[in-house]
């Protein structure tokens, strides 16, 4: 499977958001917030070790790597809107190899076109991507 194919979920979000105006994009993000509001997350992982910095509300992220060397992420935020965005990011960029993750740039995040909604949101999502890349790098360097 190509990287492009593995980014299918991400492309799905990009396509969904592309045709929406500003107000509809906000409603889309709110729908994501409502959809994932009660998703379970390991209470034990909501600690300083799994806390990422750079978002306005608290975000915790878990990371795993499978036998094929693909990275998988799960995340949670105490803010519902950010929690929805965390799910968009982890769903978008899970299942990639370390090299594929490292090749992602903030331009990918820009393609979601959420910066028009608020700059802070886009900055937060860029921080999430960098955090995911960092977790993957640490894993590859055996620094878990």
């Amino acid at each position, binding site marked *: 499977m190509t990287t492009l194919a593995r980014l299918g979920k991400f492309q799905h979000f990009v396509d969904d958001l592309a045709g929406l105006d500003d107000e509809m994009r*906000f409603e889309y993000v709110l729908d994501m917030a*409502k959809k994932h509001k009660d998703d379970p997350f390991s209470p034990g992982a909501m600690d300083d070790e799994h806390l990422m910095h750079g978002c306005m509300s608290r975000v915790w992220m878990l990371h795993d790597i499978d036998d094929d060397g693909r990275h998988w992420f799960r995340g949670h935020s105490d803010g519902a*809107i*950010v929690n929805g965005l965390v799910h968009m990011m982890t769903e978008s960029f899970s299942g990639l190899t370390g090299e594929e993750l490292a090749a992602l740039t903030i331009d990918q995040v820009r393609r979601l076109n959420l910066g028009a909604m608020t700059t802070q949101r886009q900055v937060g999502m860029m921080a999430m991507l960098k955090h995911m890349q960092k977790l993957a790098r640490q894993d590859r360097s055996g620094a878990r």
Partner: protein
Amino acid sequence: MNGPATAMRQPGSNTPYDVAAVRADFPILARPVYGKRLAFLDSAASAQKPQAVIDAVQRVYGEEYANVHRGLYFLSERATNAFEDARETVARYIGAPHPHEVIFTRNATEAINLVAASWGRSNLSAGDEVLITELEHHANIVPWQLLAQERGIVLRVAPIADDGSFMADAFYRLIGPRTKLVSVAHVSNVLGTVLPVTDIIAAAHAAGAWVLIDGCQAIQHMTVDVRALDCDFYVFSGHKLYGPSGIGALWGREAILEAMPPYMGGGDMIERVSFDGTTFAGLPHKFEAGTPAIAQAIGLAAAIRYVEGLGTAAIAAHEAALLAYMADALASVPGLRLIGTAPGKVSVVSLSADFAHAFDIAAIVDREGVAVRSGHHCAQPLMARMGVEATVRASLGLYSDRQDVDQFVTALERVRRVLG
């Protein structure tokens, strides 16, 4: 040279405060946001500007701009006069004995840093104590922490009560023989608590300590008279007083300022420079190195004249009534917790909700045209003290009205429907 504000009242007037006329003086309040009426409830972060201020700044650049203090030509003379008139206006507004005791800074943060760097470095040594409270803005915490790291001074922090009230006994117990400076907010930017600064100043002076008052959240809501307060330093930011951003003021007692070394070196602050040594200008220029914020200072003076035209007592009465209205209205929304309910508080309501995070609330009410602040409000130690990560803060200005509050309450109901 500055036209009267349309909402200007006569001093001592019995005319009711006409908030609709006041709002008409602020052009930005008429602009819709997302197609909705703007309910601007973030004046504690930065206030909107009346047309009188916008006009004053435009007039500077359009008609009388040049660098100040050095030019011998017409425009420089005009700009210098307007700039120094602005200093006199600030001095008059805060009851300063002398205009040269008013130092223009970028904001209150720079003013506190100026005192910490100049007065602090030359007057404090290891073991000396600076006393603050738990409700301070980071701008009144971090400069002293830097001095603690550099000089080994001790930062003492007085606790506040669960409702955000000042705790007199605990505070005064912390004033001791090593206390050299008491540095406190006049009004809390998160809780609205008004500190009893007159009592604090008297107690500090009795112990031989100087007092700095951070007036950022007081200067726009009440009459401030530094001579009556008898404080030693008073700082504020102009942009919270309906003036431009980039201008603030430090007031200090003449004798203290005279004895302080310069904060920054450069143009305008010198008397004579040679490679053998430099002698410094007198007050206030000793502390105003480089080209100052000329238009901003003149704009601040216009803002002060505007506020004076409405009358600080009338503004305070309007805001107090509206704050009570807002507290009552918010009490009707289930699931809200008000953070900070000290008696006599002013201007701000901080809240948390059991149905949504502060950031979710701010993001959703924004779409309803309501501008409120969410986060730690540059007061993380206070957030920890109150047991919250973040709050939503709605803050009032002289143009705030009941419709702003009603719009906020209605928007909160939407948050409950969406995320509750």
